[in-house]
């Protein structure tokens, strides 16, 4: 599995994302210029020029027509994917951390960090696809202020996602919390704490029925969207920066590694900058892919399951096409009962009967 090295960014990669169809790969880094690549061969199709700060997040709409980017230059921009033209700039009060399209791609939401006297806030913008971009209002349709914590500590949001059918806005925080907001009224619907430390990223499966949170507490956790039930935990020995759910296999990909700030004090081989593969159900790590020499900041797996991309602090994006041996891999537990397994079950029962006597 020789990866395609996508050379185009000059600084740490912050996000990599496939579009819905999996033919395009969108990437952003701290070098201000998001890029679009053909996922088949890793050729760069183009760049989106205009931001003056780190791009923290981006999201492409369902039909890959428009792209929204969130930048540390306190703006979000709306782009035409085909021409690379900036359709509109939405000015915020602070650095924009996340941006997400709503289902239907006629509105998007952003989260911005607190800045001087401004609190962190969620903004929802209406950008109907059939309207002329010049008619889009400059101000958001809805603003949700995120005040400081009761103890005066500022809590920063890290990710934003629309839940199915736009019924809730799903926001993750750097204190390990997840909150749900009503996108119509701005009311807080729910709050829970999957982690004790920062949630670096959250990602959903294509159906948006499962999500996985990646945290600085060395774990990633799988939840279902309907009941927000905790299903599985994937443990590592390093902070997890991103985790994705494979669409075609019962696998989870985890990326992370020693924090960038302490990397210089340790030798490269102990940074654990590998992509780790876990079994979705059994929570067992069964493989790693090495290559990066900085912590992996972003992961994305193609919805068709044939390749995945990883972007790291080292500024490289590696696009890996899976080998046949991986694609042919079967679940370690066969569907049929193994010979003797039933006997064993009986045996076990006898034993437990004895114990109860």
């Amino acid at each position: 599995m020789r990866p395609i090295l996508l050379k185009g960014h000059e600084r740490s990669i912050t996000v990599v994302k496939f579009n819905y169809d999996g033919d395009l790969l969108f990437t952003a880094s701290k070098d201000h210029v998001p890029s679009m690549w053909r996922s088949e061969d890793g050729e760069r199709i183009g760049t989106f020029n205009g931001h003056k700060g780190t791009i923290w997040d981006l999201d492409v709409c369902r039909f890959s027509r428009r792209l929204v980017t969130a930048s540390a230059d306190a703006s979000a921009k709306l782009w035409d994917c085909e021409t690379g033209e900036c359709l509109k700039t939405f000015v915020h009060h602070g650095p924009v951390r996340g941006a997400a399209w709503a289902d239907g791609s006629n509105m998007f939401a952003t989260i911005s960090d607190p800045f001087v006297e401004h609190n962190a806030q969620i903004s929802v913008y209406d950008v109907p696809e059939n309207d002329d971009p010049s008619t889009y209002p400059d101000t958001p349709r809805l603003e949700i202020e995120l005040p400081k914590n009761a103890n005066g500590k500022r809590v920063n949001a890290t990710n934003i996602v629309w839940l199915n059918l736009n019924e809730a806005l799903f926001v993750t925080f750097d204190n390990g919390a997840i909150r749900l907001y009503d996108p119509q009224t701005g009311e807080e619907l729910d709050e829970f704490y999957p982690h004790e430390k920062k949630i670096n990223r959250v990602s959903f499966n294509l159906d948006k029925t499962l999500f996985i949170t990646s945290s600085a507490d060395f774990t990633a956790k799988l939840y279902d969207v309907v009941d927000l039930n905790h299903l599985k935990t994937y443990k590592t020995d390093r902070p997890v920066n991103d985790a994705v759910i494979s669409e075609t296999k019962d696998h989870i990909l985890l990326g992370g590694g020693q924090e960038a700030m302490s990397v210089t004090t340790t030798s490269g081989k102990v940074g654990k900058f590998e992509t780790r593969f876990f079994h979705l159900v059994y929570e067992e790590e069964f493989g790693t892919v090495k290559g990066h020499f900085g912590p992996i900041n972003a992961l994305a797996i193609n919805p068709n399951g044939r390749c995945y991309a990883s972007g790291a602090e080292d500024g490289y994006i590696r696009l890996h096409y899976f080998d046949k041996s991986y694609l042919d891999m079967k679940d370690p537990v066969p569907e049929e009962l193994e010979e003797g397994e039933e006997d064993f079950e009986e045996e076990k029962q006898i034993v437990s009967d004895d114990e109860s006597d």
Partner: protein
Amino acid sequence: MASIEEESASLDGYFSDTPLEPRPSYPPLLSTFERSIILTNLPKVPSSKHEKLSKVVLKLVSRIGNIATYEDEDSPTGFYLPIDEANDATVGCAFVEYETETDAKKALEVLQDYKFDKNHVLKVTLYERASSLANVTEEEFTMPEPEPYKERANTMAWLEDSCQRDQFAIRHGNDTGVYWCDGKGDPVLDYGGEREKKAGINWCDYYIQWSPKGSYFATLVPNKGVILWGGKDFEKLGRFPAPGVDFVTFSPQENYILTNNNNRNDPQAIKVFSIRTGKLLRAFPLYPKDFLDDKLPEAERQNIPPPAFQWSHDDKYLARMGKDLISIFETPKMSLLDKRSLACDGINEFQFSPKANIIAYWAPEHKNSPAHVDLIELPSRKSLRQKNLFNVTKCSMVWQEDGEYLGVKVTRHTKSKKTLYNNLELFRVNEPGIPVEMLDIKDAVMAFQWEPTGSRFAILHAENPTSTKVNVSFYDMFRTSSEPAKKGKKKAENAIVAEVNKVETLEGKQCNCIFWSPAGRTIILASLGDSASGTLEFYDVENKTLTIKEHYRANQVLWDPSGRTVATTVSQPIGGGHFKFAMDNGYILWTFQGKQLSQPRSFETFYQFQWRPREKLSSKEEIAEISKNIKKYEKQFNAFDEAKKRKLRLEETREKRKSRAAFRSTLARLKEWRARQKQERKALLNGYDSEDESNYVIHEVVMETVLSSKEELITTA
């Protein structure tokens, strides 16, 4: 009458009702006898010898503390040796009064059972106790009820494990756990302080320590003392109060425990307890008397480490080095052996033999006498062997585990004292006369280790002690030489000659420590410490196979008692400031061949890893017998392993099957939920159905690329 009045008038002013100032000070009247003791069992001597005996006894009791002396008396008055006038002899007892009560109590402890001479062992009684005893009539005595028999926990329980597994204990974070290790798979928790957790406390907050045979598990409670645990369920077996305890040492036979709180100002810094009775046998200050030279500046004195106590192999003696002497205490009374220390002029270090009551010590050059290494037999104090050495800078002595050999690494200097060089002095302790062989090594020797239960040893040497590439050499105390074939015998006979010879040298190794397997034969060359690479080289000395592995930042290599498994750890001291690295603290288990047994276990904080020691119960012959029939056992064990492995796998599969079924039902529920929203989603996408595969049109495009073309002229002949 008039005269009286006149008299009183003339005396007016001399007497007054007001008290005198200042009041005369009277010594407080003693109303009790708490400072007094009675010595009994003294020899009964004729009154002519009374004075002499008085002197001796007075000298003895004065060693404890000052004898009470009243004003205007030159000689102590608090001492009385009565004479029986009728027999014209002493009664055999003495009354002593000290200046303080503490001295009286000290006398009670120290002089109790003191061997006054061959036939007289002193008994000390507090005066008050004696006087109260005097009033006891015989009828009052009732036989004390014997305590009901309480079965002690079977401290060998873990050895009865059906899988013959070894155990180890770890300390990390607030947790302490004892695990089983079968040398094949992941360790399994045996006991992790669940009972204590239920009670809301940690099993251990400080260090842990196994006893030398693994019977006891000691947990240190810093401000209280030591608790011992043992038996199948790790129940509490004993508590030993020792405030500030910093570390403990068990005696090799597990009869005694020694606690140390490392407090220079505590006269009872070191305490020795009997494990069975829980009784404090004796306490010592951290440094023996006169050990620290008063003339040295304080800062320098602070840097001198306290001399450590050492137990003899059979628990009979406890010894500590003092100034020019070794104090040897005899258990269980903890009194000086033969009432005097072993004089060793200029002693620098001593070591007990691990298998016999032999002390080896060395002393540097002193005045006109050369440096020397001495072997002294106990209790006879006979010098078994003395070896004089010249130009010695430092010696270090290493006993072989069976006590058969003693190796002394001697660092010498040239006459100019500018350059240092090494040699080894090798004592064959079990041979008559204890022959010593000298082995010259030009290089600096960084480490020296005997192969446990073998005749080989390994040294780590390099020309320059600071160089990163070092050499490892193996030597054998015996040489196999082939004698020339004699008449009548066709084959050359292999004779074994007691002669040190080099087996081989591995050159250019990157390591700073060596660790023999307890089973011998395998040795690990490790590069340990923060700045080192953590390289581990597993070397089989007989097959000469080498496996190289790595555990980055490892600082310890720990063999299990069987020599099957070895652990490497990254650990930090408790309370040693902040953790330099918050990650990778933990341990890795390897087989003796260097195969990694399990994924590294890491913890936020990792303090200790200790294998549970156990006794070697099989004799050498039995072990040889087993290795002869290894094929038979191999089959047996393999079958057992296979069955166990299969059982484990099936169990695991079953669990997985269960969790897969549960997960699948969750997924089905989610899918159903999503299916219900299909129409609404379609509406959001303007009627486009994402799940309708017919929306995708697959075009097949055939592209032809000309890679290269070449024109060639073909000539037809």
